[in-house]
């Protein structure tokens, strides 16, 4: 789909054409998004807020329009959308503000074993500091979250549910709405990591009724360095600031300071203006192509990959379908890094390792996996090249 919009796809790896199957790490940038950035730099670029000049006003408008666009797309209010440096930054913000305010000794955090380190660690470290306890939602043998067990974890001590909507290793979608209900029933909040969900699912934060929702732009055709944190209005109003600096204040004296209203309180210093413009341009680009079309396209490719991978003797697939964006597997007798090196020699770019989800990978009974991930610009040829690459690797390493 629109491969020609992605110039990087025409490059070669050594003497081989490129098959990019690592979009779950970072998606490529299409020319139309780059053109928007270029035009912005050439006409409206300036610092935002606090300026009486035309340029500053135009840049501020574009920045705030980007916020509104993100808000509409997530079904949130634009006073509930904080721009951050990325998903990791967003998730740290919640733990550093809401968490520090509300988590005390003896409290409990319900967290899935599937969490990315960026989702787990802010709460793990805070819990260690204050003497709170992490309670893990484990896997069923099928590699999905064990909801029976999960249900038993919520109690009067539970303060937070920390949950990834789509696993960056298994690709499964977790029942966020259901788990958020259980959290709310005991008075806890639900903090959702949407990094891998937003490119592959319709996200409606109002319908999910989650309290915080985080993602990164760079997995969604936008530049690096921009992320989003959705937070429920009433919660944001009660939070202390995250970082201190310019633009987030109402008034500053030598001794004390008061904070700006609304989301500005959380955006200290010059924000990543160009990142926000890029994120808006990426959403526009994806919307124009049609989200439904993109999701269906990704589903078809992944389904096909799953079937063909499962048919290769020695291949273990992790988790079970439906998968969103990513599929993880191992090949008996070949270490994931050796397999990834062979594939790389063939121009097929996958990822091998623990994918910043060590607890999950250990729960799957392994140290690392190979992960292939797809997005709108992948096609059947990419899948063919992956499958044939794995067969080549089997021959190369003499495994049967």
């Amino acid at each position, binding site marked *: 789909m629109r491969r020609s919009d992605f110039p990087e796809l025409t490059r070669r790896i050594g003497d081989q054409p490129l098959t990019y199957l690592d979009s779950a790490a970072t998606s490529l940038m299409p020319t139309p998004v780059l053109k928007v950035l270029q035009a912005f730099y050439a006409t409206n670029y300036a610092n935002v807020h606090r300026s*009486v000049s035309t340029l*500053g*006003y135009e840049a501020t408008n574009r920045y705030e329009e980007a916020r509104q666009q993100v808000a509409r797309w997530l079904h949130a209010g634009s006073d509930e959308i904080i721009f951050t440096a990325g998903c990791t930054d967003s998730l740290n913000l919640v733990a550093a503000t809401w968490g520090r305010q509300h988590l005390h000794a003896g409290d409990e955090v319900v967290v899935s074993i599937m969490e990315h380190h960026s989702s787990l660690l802010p709460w793990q470290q805070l819990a260690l500091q204050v003497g709170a306890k992490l309670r893990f939602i484990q896997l069923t043998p099928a590699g999905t979250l064990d909801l029976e067990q999960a249900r038993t974890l919520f109690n009067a001590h539970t303060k937070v549910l920390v949950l990834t909507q789509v696993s960056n290793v298994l690709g499964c979608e977790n029942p966020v709405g259901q788990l958020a209900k259980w959290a709310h029933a005991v008075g806890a909040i639900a903090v959702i990591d949407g990094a891998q969900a937003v490119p592959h699912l319709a996200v409606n934060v109002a319908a999910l009724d989650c309290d915080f929702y985080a993602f990164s732009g760079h997995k969604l055709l936008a530049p690096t360095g921009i992320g989003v944190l959705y937070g429920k209005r009433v919660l944001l109003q009660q939070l202390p600031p995250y970082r201190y600096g310019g633009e987030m204040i109402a008034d500053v004296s030598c001794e004390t300071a008061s904070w700006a209203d609304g989301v500005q309180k959380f955006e200290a210093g010059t924000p990543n203006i160009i990142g926000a413009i890029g994120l808006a341009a990426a959403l526009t680009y994806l919307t124009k192509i049609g989200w439904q079309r993109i999701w269906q396209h990704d589903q078809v490719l992944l389904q096909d990959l799953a079937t063909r991978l499962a048919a290769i003797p020695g291949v273990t697939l992790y988790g079970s379908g439906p998968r969103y964006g990513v599929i993880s597997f191992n090949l008996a007798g070949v270490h994931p890094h050796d397999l990834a090196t062979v594939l790389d020699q063939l121009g097929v770019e996958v990822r091998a390792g623990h994918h910043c989800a060590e607890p999950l990978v250990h729960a799957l009974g392994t140290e690392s996996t190979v992960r292939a991930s797809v997005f709108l610009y992948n096609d059947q040829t990419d899948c063919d090249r992956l499958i044939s690459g794995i067969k080549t690797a089997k021959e190369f390493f003499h495994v049967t």
Partner: protein
Amino acid sequence: MLHDLRELYQAVILDHAAHPRNQGKLATATSDQLVHNPSCGDTIHLYLQVIQGRIAAIEFTGSGCTISQASASLLTTVIKGKTMQEALTLADHFSALAMGQAAPKAGLGDAVILTQVMQFPTRIKCATISWWALKQAILTEQEEEA
């Protein structure tokens, strides 16, 4: 190129900024409201004396640009003697006009000149801040009465 500016900074506006009417800290105030524009440091402190639902007296103190000071001064001249309900309506009309929306101009007197500020989007807040303070003060007054 300064044409739009001349429409905004008319003699009466410059006069109100230079010689603000009703400046002071009304001793008999029944309610007051302090507002602050963090983007430029403009400050307006509005004092109201409400007697039987009518704004019997009104004064302000503050500092800031021509627009914000003239706006506060004009506001006091327009509002004195109005009922709380009339004042609320005028505040809404002024804010709407200043943001370029349609609304009746009746009753705003010379303050209507300042709605030209809609041509200068970054300055709209300077003109509307005192009217916003008025609205807050009246709402507080009404709450206390109720």
